[in-house]
């Protein structure tokens, strides 16, 4: 079950990935792919969840389970503290969107396929629709709103604007977060690495040419489409 849990170690304590060892394992034990693999192997993510809750409860010296009714939760999102009273079954995505009015992460497939809800948990990209809010307590959550603001865009956001890597824009927050994570891990990615790292996000309007060029610009590389 261990691989279905997000890393407790802060991002900066993770071993540094190199460009040519661009494997998902370098992402930490809670990469999106491994989360999905782990979930599938376990039959359900809830097994991991349960152990997570129990770990937390034991740490506080009081055995028990949370729910099924709403319970108090506390989050650290984009560097700010939030509290909410939510049922344990509420996903991180629904907590962000429905309860905290952080609507940058989008609900599209709601089952870990499209990547529109991608956020960072302790620096690692995850599908927020596939993480329970109760499990995200204690983690540093970064949403697209925390990557940058219109007046102070992250270089990858500026690059998305410059290369028109967005049309309707509904997949864009997920791509921006995934691209920021990609560049943290691979400052100068080759095209195969870009394709692999962004392969968990889908666009319907067809902005992939712009996204390739945007990542290249933000990485300080070339800027050609295609």
């Amino acid at each position: 079950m261990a691989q279905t849990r997000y890393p407790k170690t802060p991002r900066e304590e993770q071993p540094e990935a190199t460009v040519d060892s661009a494997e998902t394992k370098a992402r930490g034990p809670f990469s999106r792919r491994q989360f999905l693999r782990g979930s599938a192997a376990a039959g359900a993510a809830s097994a991991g969840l349960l152990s997570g809750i129990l770990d937390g409860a034991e740490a506080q010296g009081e055995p028990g389970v949370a729910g099924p009714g709403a319970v108090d939760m506390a989050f650290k999102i984009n560097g700010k503290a939030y509290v909410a009273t939510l049922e344990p079954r509420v996903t991180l995505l629904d907590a962000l969107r429905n309860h905290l009015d952080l609507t940058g992460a989008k609900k599209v497939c709601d089952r870990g396929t499209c990547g529109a809800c991608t956020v960072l948990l302790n620096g690692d990209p995850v599908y927020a629709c596939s993480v329970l809010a109760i499990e995200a307590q204690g983690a540093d959550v970064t949403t697209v709103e925390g990557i940058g603001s219109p007046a102070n865009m992250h270089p990858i956001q500026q690059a998305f604007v410059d290369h028109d890597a967005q049309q309707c824009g509904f997949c864009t927050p997920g791509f921006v977060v995934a691209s920021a994570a990609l560049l943290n891990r691979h400052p100068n990615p080759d095209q195969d690495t870009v394709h692999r790292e962004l392969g968990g996000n889908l666009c319907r309007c067809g902005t992939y040419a712009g996204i390739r060029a945007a990542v290249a610009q933000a990485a300080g590389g070339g800027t050609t489409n295609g």
Partner: protein
Amino acid sequence: MAEYTWPAAGDRLHIGKHISRLDGPVKATGRAKYAYDVNRRGMLWAIMVQCPHAHARITSIDASAAEAMDGVVKVHVIQDVGTEIQWAHDEIVAVAATSEEVARDGAAAVKIEYEVLSHFVNERAVDEAPDAQPAQAETTGDPAAAMASAPTKSSGSYHVAQIAHCSLESHGQVAEWQDEENVTLWASTQAISGVASQLGEQIGIPASNVHVETQYMGGGFGSKFSVDRWGVVCAQIARDTGRPVKLMLDRDQEVTVAGARPSTHAEVSTAADADGNVVAWDSKSWGSGGPAGANSPPLPYVFAFDNQTHAHTSVPTNTGPARAWRAPRHPQACLVTMRALEDLAHAAGMDPLDFFLKNIDKTGERAGTYTEELEKGAELMGWRDRWRPRGSATGTVRSGLGLALHTWGGRGHRSNCEVLAYRDGLVEARIGSQDLGTGTRTIIALVLAETFGLGLEQVKVTMGRSVLPASGASGGSTTVGGVSGSTRRAALNAVDAVFERIAPRLGTEMANLELRNGQLHFKDGSMAAMPWRQAAALIGVNPVSATGANPGPGQLNDSGVGGIQMADVSVDMDTGVVSINRMVAVQDCGLILDMKLAESQVYGSLIMGVTYALTEERVFDPHTGQMLNADMEFYKLAGIEDVGEMIVHMMTGPGYDERGVIGLGEPPVIAPGAAIANAATNATGVPINEMPMTPERVLAAINGGMA
């Protein structure tokens, strides 16, 4: 009086340049609020209970358990006992509750019983269709005689599966009543003005009391023109409960009931003379997009032959109904026609590039454009050096080239715009249009700034609200021509109105004034040019206002484009996997206002084309009538690694610019599938006649058509 023209090539400040979309920063930072993102105080969430059967009659509805739940506020019966349901996932009951989770619990607790009726979903088996509707053949000349005497003949069956729109933002809206007579609808729609009228009629209030707001919307592709039943239901629940209500479709509903592109199946025979001139065409097609069947695709496509005949059979099925999908009926017609002509070229022993050029006069008035585009495309693809006859490739992974032609209208729709000039120097356009992500907001700003000779930061666009001057729905590539026409005319009128207002205050005549590069110029040189801000200060406290409409005086837009696309693909003969190496698109669309946005449309179209060519299909189980892939795991969209290299070339300059603005949303999405299928055929040496070109189908073709 203003002269309603576009500025000449040398006088353009913004037009034709690579300008970034103005709402790029709010989208890229997650600040753009879509309908799905609207959260209102006290808002309820509504979830719809769907029919599990493809054809059934409702015999009972018991919502008592749902109504008794804590947090459930309203159970709304959409279709009552006795109603005959024609497709699976049709909406029966909506449950509104204080949270999304409780609304789902409530929906799950509603008990609905059905009398299950017989269904038909396998529209490919036209002979088994219970309600097939054949139409009379349309015939020109004598195809049978021409076919009989021709030395070169070809025939084949070509198939295009039904696909979904699969907009990433699902259909839906938030409704909130201000009082008993006024409702606001934050809707994910391509038609704010139309939705206001539709909702007003259906809930019994004046259309002017419906305030539709759509600043951003997450994809429609032709599926979001209507208020839809769920929009009416949402407003009704909001009225009944006195609370705002959010109702958005779940993903399974989005791909089953909220839009489909009809299938097309066709049997085609063609013939050519000894020189490679096409002399005869004979096609029979059928297809379905749901209970209404499907209209005939325009066959033969792009070309018209002296001897041709076509007959179509519409096949109703028990599947969620069709909606307009970018360039309705054209991608299907393009696949059928271009594959059939490629097969005829092969039978004639000709390079398809030569074959298409040989027959280019049969495309009509756009023959010259197609010729230029084919030559440009051939250069970009390296066609002359790289094309080899069908089946020349050897080895496990074989590559090949293919090409296709397309056409579309794209004339600007009806649009109204008001332009206001304020004394602080701000110039504002107000227009009841919507930006689907095509860049409409940016185009309006660009035209306004161009006309006033200002920078883009000095103008403002107010749009996306149904109370603004009415503008058409965004569909069929009509928006860019419509809004640029109305904005240009309104802006030219506003410049005149500003001159009329300030000329007396400057002691001169209107005709002596000119706005250029952010300055007011005096044509007679009587005064030095003054900055626009200084001139605008003379407007006074009441802003200058002027309006403009499309259509209107002067040729600002036109209709009718042609484009060509070429594909370079590889096919793995052992696995049947088709991979895209390179796509080339050469496209005309008259005067291009923003080159960056125009190129984006074409890149996006190529990618959307790759995905419908290779992976997209609504798969129905003939036994249960259910769509088997009502999700995004198995309703597959191409990812960033799947789309290959893309080269886009826009035709501009003399011969193109003077036509004015023509829409671009549809044309480039038509031909990718046909070009890819022709390339796969060229690579494998066997006809690849079905979209999507899944490994299973390609392997079956390679192994002798055993599918």
